[in-house]
């Protein structure tokens, strides 16, 4: 069964006919062509596929594209504006919050919401807030530093 969906992705309106069983991550990567959201586990654990749906971070491998009908989606591609990195991206860059970068799109999206909800998080709150995002490289310490730096930048 095909359903028509209207979505706004990174500020651009689109209409597509999709199968009701199409996962949001497959829609974004294969139909829209946005390869920023990654598929790490496909089992809703790793968070590499994290995007913002109406401002809330979600794992796009655990959503159907039809659930996003009429909604606003932001992927990692939508973070930078006019060639200017988003403060969260800048902080990950400056603090070496990544190595291979596979987890990074998800980390950035989750961090954006984390510091929006808690502008001055402690280390423990950052680790709790990032529980849904796994990183195989960094050992997390540089990511925690990056989140702190991003929070300071956005707050200050």
């Amino acid at each position, binding site marked *: *069964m095909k*359903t028509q969906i209207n979505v706004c992705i990174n500020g651009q309106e689109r209409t597509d006919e999709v*199968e*009701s*069983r199409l*996962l949001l991550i*497959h829609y974004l990567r294969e139909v829209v062509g946005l390869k920023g959201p990654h598929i790490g586990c*496909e*089992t*809703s*654990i790793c*968070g590499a596929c*994290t995007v913002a749906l109406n401002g*809330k*971070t*979600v*794992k796009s*491998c*655990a*959503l*159907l594209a*039809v*659930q996003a*009908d009429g909604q606003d989606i932001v992927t990692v591609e939508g973070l930078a504006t006019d060639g200017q990195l988003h403060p969260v991206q800048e902080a990950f860059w400056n603090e070496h919050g990544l190595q291979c970068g596979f987890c990074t799109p998800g980390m950035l999206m*989750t961090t954006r*919401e*984390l510091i929006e909800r808690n502008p001055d998080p402690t280390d423990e709150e950052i680790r709790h*807030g*990032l*529980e*849904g*995002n796994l990183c195989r490289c960094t050992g997390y310490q540089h990511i925690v530093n990056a989140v702190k730096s991003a929070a300071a930048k956005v707050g200050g």
Partner: protein
Amino acid sequence: MIPQEFNYSRPGTVQEAVDLLADHDAKVLAGGMSLIPLMKLRLSAPEHVVDLGRIPDLSRITENEGSLHLGALLTHHQVATSALVQEKCPLIAETAAHIGDAQVRNMGTLGGSAAHADPAADYPAALCALEAKVRLVRKDSERVVDIGDFFVDALTTAVEPEEIITELILPVEEAGTGVSYQKLRQPASGFAIVGVAARIRRDGGRIAMARVGVTGLAASAYRAAGVEALLEGSEGSQADVAGASAAVDEGIEAISDLHASSDYRRHVARVYTARAILAAL
């Protein structure tokens, strides 16, 4: 990892939703945090999916004559962060904050967690300790089920296929009642190996009311009546709490899986029961 094909409907009202359920062999979709993973694994392959995600009536929080009514579609994040819920029923807010991770709390819902009845889910412990009531609506009628009759077995509840949960009804906590939810978290998934919810009210140096709900230990969450009976009337000393907590697994068939053996789970249940009671006192 792609679900089997299905027909999809997205009703705008409860009435439309229950009409669809009456006419189709359909499965309800709420936050999808349990159902979609199961559909991807094809452990669940519904022919028709009825998405409740756009029914505004199901996300209400209202207070009425000593009860708090929480709409089934409230996300874990909404329950955890609502000022009204934190004030009137702090146990359910505290429990919600313990579930999964930030992304799961943004999508997963109270009604969905109750309906799914995972033996390791967090909410069921709190719902038992709160003696919650569940409102179930179908095409031409509705009923309210006590939580004691709601959880039937692992992944099995009193909800009939043509029914939906519209709300959970919880008591507004009386002044002087302490609450706590203590959980041993499975590090990879975040689910509870064992989780214990406690509500304790003291009166004149003695425990006047004790309610203890347990998840993770048995196939379904339950109220530890033995613990409650030993606590009520006691002074709530360390020794009283230790003695009462030892009764948490009385008559319970403890589950065993690759994360924890049944003996280990029993031990953890006693320890976490004592912790939850002491934190609530």
